[in-house]
């Protein structure tokens, strides 16, 4: 399989652009989440993000909060994450990142978590509540194991922080489109375009835009200036409302926004 970085760059080069799809492990069951992620890969997602259900998801809106709470209530444990990765990896070659709040990783052991990701077939991790300033151990371990690490930049970040977070990231840096939590928004902020402009002028690391993207038009718009569009809530909502067929339809619909 190709790396996250190579995939994003090749898709940018060809003019297609990239769709990065988030889906939580264990929702509504472990088996269903494997089928969901595979379907997303087969119907147009270029990179997969596997979310780790967590008790205190401060960056997430209600749709993802409820889905991840249900996954935990249905019995999701951290060991299931690596099982989901293994089973998805066995069926598709799409690059795959874990998205986890920091405490589950810290509790599991940073080195051991990294090793399990590597062995099960993930390319790295997005850490929504871990800034590079606090990430000394993760920087060291991910470097040693050749794993991607994706930090966030936000419209409120100073130029110094945009440069530092982008340079500390590997794979891509996550540009938060707006000041807010995950969830659908009718229109994308001009803030996103400005932020990506700053990333591009301050770092060589590719950047994908996330938070608030839910339509093919938004996927097209974002790929006009960034290296990919990240969608989470819209996929989880589609599955919630219409099951796997709904998720397949939503993936195709959003992938149609690519070139």
């Amino acid at each position, binding site marked *: 399989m190709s790396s996250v970085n190579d995939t994003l760059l090749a898709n940018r080069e060809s003019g297609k652009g990239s769709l990065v799809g988030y889906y939580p492990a264990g929702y509504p069951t472990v088996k269903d989440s494997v089928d969901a992620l595979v379907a997303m890969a087969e119907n147009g997602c270029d990179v997969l993000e596997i979310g780790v259900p967590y008790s205190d998801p401060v960056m997430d809106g209600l749709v993802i909060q*409820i889905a991840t709470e249900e996954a935990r209530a249905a019995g999701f444990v951290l060991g299931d994450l690596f099982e989901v990765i293994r089973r998805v990896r066995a069926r598709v070659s799409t690059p795959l990142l874990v998205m986890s709040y920091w*405490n589950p990783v810290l509790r599991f052991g940073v080195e051991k978590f990294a090793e399990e990701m590597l062995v099960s077939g993930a390319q790295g991790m997005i850490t929504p509540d871990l800034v590079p300033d606090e990430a000394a151990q993760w920087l060291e371990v991910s470097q040693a194991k050749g794993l991607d690490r994706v930090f966030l930049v936000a419209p409120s970040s100073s130029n110094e922080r945009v440069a530092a977070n982008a340079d500390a990231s590997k794979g891509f840096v996550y540009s938060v489109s707006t000041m807010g939590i995950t969830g659908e928004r009718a229109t994308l902020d001009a803030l996103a375009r400005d932020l990506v402009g700053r990333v591009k002028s301050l770092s060589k690391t590719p950047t994908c835009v996330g938070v608030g993207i839910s339509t093919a038009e938004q996927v097209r718009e974002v790929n006009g200036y960034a290296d990919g569009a990240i969608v989470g809530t819209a996929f989880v909502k589609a599955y919630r409302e219409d099951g796997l067929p709904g998720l397949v339809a939503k993936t195709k619909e959003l992938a149609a926004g690519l070139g």
Partner: protein
Amino acid sequence: MKLSEQVGPYYGEYGGRFVPEPLIAALDQLEATYEAMRIDPGFIAELAELHKTYTGRPSIITEAKRFAANYGDIRVFLKREDLNHTGSHKINNVMGQALLAKKMGKKRIIAETGAGQHGVASATAAAFFGLDCVVYMGEVDTERQALNVARMKLLGAEVIPVTSGSKTLKDAINEALRDWVANVDTTHYLLGTVAGPHPFPTMVRDFHSVIGYEAREQMLELTGRLPDAVAACVGGGSNAIGIFHAFLDDEDVALWGFEAAGEGVDTLRHAATLSRGTPGVLHGAKSYMLQDADGQTMESHSISAGLDYPGVGPEHSWLKDLGRASYHGVTDTEAMNAMRLLSQTEGIIPAIETAHGLAGIEHLAKVLPAGAHILVNLSGRGDKDMETAAKYFGLMGDK
């Protein structure tokens, strides 16, 4: 370096800023403003004047002779934070942060609340300073503390019930953080305890340290010496840090924090974070917390809503590891008995949170030498807890 000179972001391996990047700029702004104001003579004088003319400081010390007589040869002194405006120590921090919000040009404050004391204090400060105020409160707590919801509304605040997660204080903090991410330009998050990301643990401690500095002077004047032990209840830990701070470098003064042991620390229903927790990251800081093997936050339990929290401020974790402060669990039953005892021996009805600190005196009387002087932070009054107490002791209806 003196222990009392320690400031964030780190207390040993604890503290830090484990928050999403969008919040970092707001924390930087808050830190810079606070760093400038904490040494600004104008700000210091303005806050002192507010405490004198509005909060009601300094708070007095009352010796609890009849209460102490139950425990043998000891003397017990109560630092009367219950006599502050709004009925608890919470106002010390709230007035400080609301004044900072004004200095930063923020027109809106948001706050989390469990029992409602911090929410009421925040709504009070918002009314006083002319700021908009939104209080997040777990849905379960809005039902348990309906009267405090009414108080906040009367003061002009909007109270938003939180329906996610366990629907208690922990989830109210999550929701306040989500609001702050989206409204950081106009809004100050008035966090109510010494937890959270830097600079909150240091700043909130500083605003409450007035409790200990006053008490230290008052004890010297009253008894001619320092107390042998200083005791307080610990949930997030703000009133305990407030009274401990002035004594941190007095090596002969023992510092004791009493946590909520709920139905017992050997059950799953307690909030004894320091006694039974493990280090982890919750609400933006590394500290002791109650978590399972997967790093999921566990639900806490206490009869006292204000101590019903699975985390604790990072400075307490540091003081515990250093051995400078000791932490001990007090069960629901022990706390309720202490509440009744203080009421009936001194005519002072303490908050159930505070009663945990008072219950700890039974333990201290055994470990301290005869004649020991114990200073207790009487952090809040019990009016808000009358419904719980009436049910617990069977004081209503025919009984």
